[in-house]
């Protein structure tokens, strides 16, 4: 009997949390993380210029506070967030403001951007690292802060979610509103193939992650904090487990499956709760944020440092020397690729982000923004080429859709602009993870079609 009990508990190492440690559906794309997962983070010196779009987040753009020819110092506020869902912008270098420019981000948006030409004294690499990740993080001495104070620090630091969606963090990590929060879930899944930014941050700066998580938990009034990590990230799990006990956090080890890093599926995996369709995690008493975002929170609260830099992975078979870099926001990607030894001859496609959810781009002047989690350059061999044919209704997309939608129907309805059908099949539930397109034997551009469908629906609503 005791043996049986032992067996059972072995089967569920997840007894520390109430979820099953995974979700249903999803796909297993090749991970290819080893290209860069063991390369320590390297600090990138200030480039000649940075291009800072006024909208690097979900919500409204910020208002520029600087004029051309004006001198700005490293860390100075240069853009003020407007409205509730927006974010402040700070200078990632010291320098002189140039004329406003229009830049196009990989997601196709044309945006006004502040351009700063670097000039004068810049913090050197070691200084930057020490400020952002180094030294002691005595979080206990900050436990006297009120939730409002923590939230104010997050707001003024211009922090947005660094996992990719770039939702302003002060909205998510907010003091108790009408919906009390019981659990803070910290997202360390990084299910996107190739990328290892969150992984490196967890391995090299576990203490900062934990400090940020404790502050965030205090801000939202959570009774428990769970860090979810996929089981292919052993070192990160160990690093966080060493600190978790003392800090009162739980580390949930989850099955490696795409898209485990999706908010809703992470909550399902660790708490066995479903966020209602069209609702937010707060509706079921959960606040959720990414591990790298937690480090930004710790910096903002404990050291009063705004969000000016982020860690990105520059990887893929088409990159000479894949690296993890701490880069200033706004740095043109071309310069970053140069730091990594340039492109290989067989490089075929550049993607901002990872291969599943990232956006392909061609312009090397494209800047890194707060939401850029990496740059993936694929070779001809890595790019899956299937001639687009037609849907044979095999249903593979239905079998893998983590939102349990019928992607091919959504794509078809979008192509034929059939709004009734688009609604009936709940198009807005799709978060464009790309699992359907990944398995489609006909090579259909399902996500692209669905995006058009969503735009159609939005246009209809605004009529």
């Amino acid at each position: 009997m005791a043996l049986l009990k032992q067996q059972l508990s072995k089967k569920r190492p997840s007894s520390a949390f109430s979820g099953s440690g995974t979700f249903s559906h999803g796909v297993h794309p090749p991970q290819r993380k080893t290209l860069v997962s063991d390369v320590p983070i390297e600090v990138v010196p200030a480039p000649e210029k940075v291009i800072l779009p006024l909208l690097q987040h979900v919500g409204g753009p910020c208002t520029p506070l600087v004029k051309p020819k004006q001198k700005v110092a490293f860390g100075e506020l240069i853009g003020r967030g407007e409205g509730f869902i927006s974010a402040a912008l700070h200078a990632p270098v010291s320098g002189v403001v140039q004329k406003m420019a229009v830049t196009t981000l990989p997601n196709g948006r044309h945006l006004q951007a502040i351009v700063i030409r670097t000039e004068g004294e810049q913090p050197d690499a070691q200084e930057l690292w020490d400020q952002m990740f180094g030294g002691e993080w005595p979080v206990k001495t900050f436990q006297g802060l009120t939730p409002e104070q923590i939230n104010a620090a997050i707001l003024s630091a211009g922090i947005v979610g660094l996992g990719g969606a770039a939702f302003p963090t002060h909205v998510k990590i907010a003091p108790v509103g009408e919906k009390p929060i019981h659990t803070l879930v910290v997202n360390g899944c990084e299910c996107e193939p190739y990328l290892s930014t969150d992984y490196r941050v967890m391995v090299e700066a576990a203490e900062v992650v934990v400090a940020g998580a404790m502050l965030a938990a205090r801000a939202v009034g959570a009774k428990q904090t769970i860090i979810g990590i996929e089981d292919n990230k052993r070192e990160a799990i160990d690093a966080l487990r060493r600190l978790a006990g003392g800090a009162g956090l739980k580390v949930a080890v989850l099955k490696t499956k795409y898209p485990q890093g999706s908010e809703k599926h992470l909550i399902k995996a660790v708490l066995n709760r479903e966020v209602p369709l069209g609702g937010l995690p707060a509706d079921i008493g959960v606040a959720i944020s990414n591990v790298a975002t937690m480090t930004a929170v710790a910096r903002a609260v404990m050291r009063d440092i705004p969000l000016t830099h982020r860690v990105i992975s520059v990887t893929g078979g088409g990159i000479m020397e894949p690296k993890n870099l701490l880069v200033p926001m706004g740095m043109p990607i071309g310069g970053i690729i140069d730091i990594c030894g340039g492109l290989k001859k067989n490089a075929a496609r550049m993607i901002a982000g990872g291969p599943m959810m990232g956006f392909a781009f061609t312009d090397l002047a494209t800047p890194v923004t707060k939401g850029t989690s990496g740059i993936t350059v694929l070779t001809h061999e890595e790019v899956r080429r299937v001639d687009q044919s037609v849907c044979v209704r095999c249903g593979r997309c239905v079998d893998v859709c983590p939102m349990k939608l019928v992607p091919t129907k959504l794509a078809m309805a979008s192509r034929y602009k059939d709004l009734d059908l688009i609604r009936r099949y709940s198009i807005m539930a799709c978060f464009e993870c790309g699992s359907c397109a990944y398995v489609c034997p006909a090579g259909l551009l399902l996500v692209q079609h669905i995006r058009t469908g969503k735009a159609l629906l939005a246009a209809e609503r605004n009529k």
Partner: protein
Amino acid sequence: MGMTIQTMMRDVLIALAPMVLSAIYFFHWYAVKQLLTCVAAALLAEMLFTRMRGRKANLGDLSAVVTGVILGLSLPGTAPWYVGVIAAAIAMGIGKIVFGGLGMNIFNPAMVGRAFVMIAFAGSMAASGYVASRLNIDIMSQATPLNAHKQLGAVVSLQSLFWGNTNGSLGETSALACLLGGLFLCIRRVASWEIPAGVLLSTFVIAGAANLMNLSSPWTVAHHLLGGALLFGAFFIATDPVTSPLTPGGKWIFGMGIGALVMLLRLFSGYPEGVMFAVLLMNSLTPLINRLTIPRPFGGV
């Protein structure tokens, strides 16, 4: 992953190999001739009709070959060559291309072709024969097991139905071959297992009930499952993705509907067998089933 339409079709052809081999083993050159006629005619028809639509034919996706082989296997070896040719032309033209080609058709193309010749050439579709190699006879012309049972109450042994040394359409006689190929398709996930499972389940239940009501009948549940085109239909015809529902729930409904219709036709209609009509009827319900089985989205109510 790396599955494409072409590799799916290639898998179907691999899965059809046991039936092609058993057909050649039992029906010798009748099978060879019928299969070659149907495949050639299907390819030609696909080319011709697509050209009539002003499109370029894509024979490389192998879908026309699959339709040709399935059609050939669903015809008796003794049916004259023009029956195969006409069936193939109807299958590709009326069954597929008029709807817009691959992926657009409502009815299983091979069954559309077969239904046409079944009615137009009833005589040559019924009569068949198999070469009894161990006897010194070239060919034995006889009724199919289901027909013999319906007309005369004769019962074929389960062994014959299992191995396939009996009469019938080329691909349907050997239950063993159908199971081998069918399981391969399900394991490769080219066919959805829910469909054959649904067909077999409802056939089993209804045949079982029929058996209980008439215990003395020598035509048992096993005869119903192994005989006729049931296994061939369940694994290879009903599972055509284009004409079957998209969702797991829909696939169960579709499969069980086919099983129920097959048993209805077998027990109460004038036809000895009903797989073809059952599949065609359920094909027509597929859009409705899709609509009724929209899955509950994650987080939805």
